[in-house]
């Protein structure tokens, strides 16, 4: 099953021409600077904006196809949309707001009590939207969209209008939703933290074009894509907790064949998590050093070496059995170690440099 979007639209100031296809269910984050065209994709998917050329297909169901003149109006699309400003109906209670879409949709699998429970809004049901905090409003808006039994959930910067504390309050709920729902989700943000915590797939959008898309771990580790140009460039890997070693205060993680040791975790063995490894924390070596404090010496193959002239650095992309690593080193290191695409290399990573993100 997949979600595929293709659209072209001429705005007075710029042309949008974008296409991508991602697996469904799963959270796909549309990431890019403001005005790049992320919201255009969301509005077109919801049916609130009609592009010149557009085809949108969700799990085999075509929502819009300008080639055949097919255009489902928003009210018949069963596509949930969470706006940046929650847009709750001010004249209804929270409970009535939640039921607004549910009453108009055929019975589905999303149950009222489950959603209220999942989002922690049971105490708010009798209140009016005007009396809610920003974070509470956004949670109700998410619940309202889910209860309309959507085939596709769209979230247009749902956390952008909230301060850091409110964001931190909602993010865990979103992570829980992600695992509880079997639903394709398109999520717009320009906050990298939300990307690393929520995304399964990533679509990079810039100036009306899609510059790259694919699984998060792949796109994040592509040295030639914009994410690698950032100061906080990092690789992301899916891991499973293998065992704890309380004596050494370490936990062993397995990322599809590559082993990582990190400082002792609380997570139960067998649970899934994702880890983030900043590119500037990765050391490359030709030979394994001995007598070193380091725990993680990872075997890999170089796939790509991309110059980063602004920082007088080089980004090296290393293939692992499952995923890829990014290392930001100096051009001098590349020539001293004689690194080249296709060649073997050892990545040295301090346990304390690995950020474990959970879920």
């Amino acid at each position, binding site marked *: 099953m997949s979600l595929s979007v293709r659209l072209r639209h001429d705005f007075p100031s710029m042309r949008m021409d974008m296409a991508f296809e991602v697996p469904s269910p799963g959270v796909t984050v549309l990431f890019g600077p403001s005005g790049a065209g992320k919201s255009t994709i969301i509005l077109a998917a*919801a*049916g*609130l904006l009609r592009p010149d050329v557009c085809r949108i297909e969700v799990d085999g169901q075509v929502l819009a196809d300008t080639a055949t003149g097919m255009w489902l*109006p*928003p*009210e*018949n*699309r*069963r*596509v*949930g*949309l969470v*706006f940046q*400003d929650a*847009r709750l*109906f*001010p*004249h209804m209670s929270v409970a009535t707001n939640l039921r*607004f*879409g549910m009453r*108009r*949709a055929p019975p589905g699998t999303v149950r009222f009590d489950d959603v209220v429970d999942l989002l922690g809004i049971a105490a708010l049901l009798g209140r*009016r*939207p*005007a*009396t809610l905090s920003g974070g509470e409003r956004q949670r109700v808006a998410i619940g*309202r*969209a889910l209860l*309309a039994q959507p085939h596709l959930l769209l979230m247009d910067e749902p956390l952008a209008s909230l301060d850091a504390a409110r964001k931190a309050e909602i993010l865990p709920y979103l992570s829980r939703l992600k695992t509880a729902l079997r639903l394709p989700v398109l999520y717009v943000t320009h906050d990298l933290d939300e990307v690393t915590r929520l995304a399964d797939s990533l679509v990079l959008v810039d100036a009306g074009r899609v510059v790259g898309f694919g699984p998060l771990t792949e796109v994040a580790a592509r040295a030639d894509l914009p994410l690698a140009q950032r100061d906080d460039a990092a690789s992301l890997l899916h891991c499973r907790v293998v065992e704890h070693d309380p004596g050494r205060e370490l936990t062993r993680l397995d990322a599809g064949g590559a082993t990582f040791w990190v400082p002792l975790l609380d997570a139960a063995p067998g649970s899934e998590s994702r880890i983030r490894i900043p590119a500037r924390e990765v050391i490359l070596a030709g030979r394994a050093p001995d007598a070193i404090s380091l725990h993680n010496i990872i075997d890999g193959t170089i796939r790509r070496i991309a110059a980063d002239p602004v920082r007088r650095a080089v980004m090296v992309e290393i293939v692992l059995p499952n995923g890829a690593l990014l290392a930001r080193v100096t051009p001098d290191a590349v020539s001293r170690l004689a690194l080249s695409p296709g060649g073997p290399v050892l990545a040295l990573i301090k346990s304390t440099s690995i950020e474990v993100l959970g879920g």
Partner: protein
Amino acid sequence: MIVAARAVGFGLPLAIVMAWVLARYRFPGRSMLNALVHLPLVLPPVVTGWLLLILFGIRGPIGSLLLQWFDIRLVFTTAGASLACAVMTFPVMVRSVRLSLEAVDPGLDQAARTLGAGRLDRLFHVTLPLASPGILVGGIVGYATCLGEFGAVITFAANIPGQTQTLPLAIYAALQVPGGEAKAAELSLVSLTLALIGLLLSEWLGKRLNVVLGR
């Protein structure tokens, strides 16, 4: 009083429809329609009454049809007085309703769309409830204006006591009679009270509604 109630009763729903059309849609002739709606506001009332007489008179194009098909006679009847009042207060009501419709956040309409609500569904469950303070104020001000309507009514429906005599017509009639000042004063007091009650009521209801609407 009954004249005014009927005028508002029939006029307000029409005013809502007209206001919705003017507020939401852009079409050729829209400004012409807008001007037509507001015409009674700037036209001398007597002219409006005369135009009604031409259109709805027994021999007028609409009046003769009504008489032939439905046996309805509007001229010089209570219904006619209501029609004259409704036409005169229509612009006031449309203005008030339209302003409140335009104040409703179109984003909420979009949200309702994505939640599966069709056009009428959205109108009745989102837009109109949110515009209700303006609609209410329009109705009350319209009612109060109806009570004071003079020129168009006297021209179109005449001044028949108990049938088409509105308050100002009664006051005017009383003033024409020698020694009628006392009656005129009495009626004026009634008029003053009604107007005050109307204004206070609309203020109070508007506040209450805003509380309900969570503003």
